[in-house]
């Protein structure tokens, strides 16, 4: 039972992680390191920081985020990420779906007898 629970959690995390990333970018553009540390703040969201980078790469390829290089005060230029219009739309869409799903699951799982 434990094994399948772990697998389920991993799957849920993987499926939702990209929307957490998109959401972090909703208000401002951020660079990779900053994003990664921002995600790590929330317990249970990220097991290994390095795995965010393949995700970012994929989001870029899918056109949900775009990146630009900007000079950094400390050292080499940084790659900054920001949402595209498609990214914004995807995030909005997910928000609606997530609320519905979360409420549905809560309805059963969060029942108090």
């Amino acid at each position: 039972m434990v094994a399948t629970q772990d697998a389920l959690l991993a799957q849920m995390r993987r499926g939702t992680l990209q929307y957490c990333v998109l959401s972090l970018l909703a208000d401002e553009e951020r660079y990779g390191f900053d994003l990664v540390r921002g995600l790590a703040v929330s317990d249970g969201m990220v097991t290994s920081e390095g795995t965010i980078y393949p995700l970012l790469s994929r989001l870029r390829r899918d056109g949900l985020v775009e990146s630009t290089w900007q000079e950094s005060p400390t050292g080499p230029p940084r790659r900054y990420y920001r949402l595209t219009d498609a990214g914004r739309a995807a995030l909005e869409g997910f928000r609606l779906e997530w609320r519905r799903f979360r409420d549905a699951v809560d309805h059963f799982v969060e029942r108090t007898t």
Partner: protein
Amino acid sequence: MAAKVDKLVSDYLKRLNGELRGLPRARRRELVDEISEHIAEARAGLESENEAAIRTLLDRLGDPEEIAAEARERFGLAPRKVGWKEVGALIMLPIGGVILPVLGWFIGIVLLWVSDAWSTRDKLVGTLLFPGGLLLPLALGVMAEESSGCGTIVNPQLSPQPIGSNCPPADGTGAWEVALVVMLVLVPLVTTVYLARRMRRASSATA
């Protein structure tokens, strides 16, 4: 201290690059670059760059195998199977010299060093133990038989049966030579098994 820390980082990045085998070259380079920058940023933020801090940093980043598995998953690639270079090296090193004298083993060496599935240390092990692979004991065995030139003695006029043999009698020195040949056979085989186990593979953890 700085040298050790730099080595930890460069080893990590080398491992990461190796684990990313199979991904499109651009993706691979991009990921290594980004993670390299991440490490640089993290280091800049450290109060003191001691070994413990760097190790913690790399731990938080995660195992290169895990990152590569995630990359494969995100880009819809199947978990990496063993590549042809590695299979080639593992075949040609022990028996390449037998199939195609000298050149065959050499091909194995080239494949071994060109592949990024092994650390430099492992590659040295594979090269030095044992040069020629199984060709050497095989050649020694053949040479030994020919040089002794022994065989059975036959005098057809007396009888069609062999009447004796001029092979040197088995004694202590013969056993020593056998032990040597056995060792020369075992070492390349054991080395091949060692290399096979030390090969960096993609994890099957994504499945």
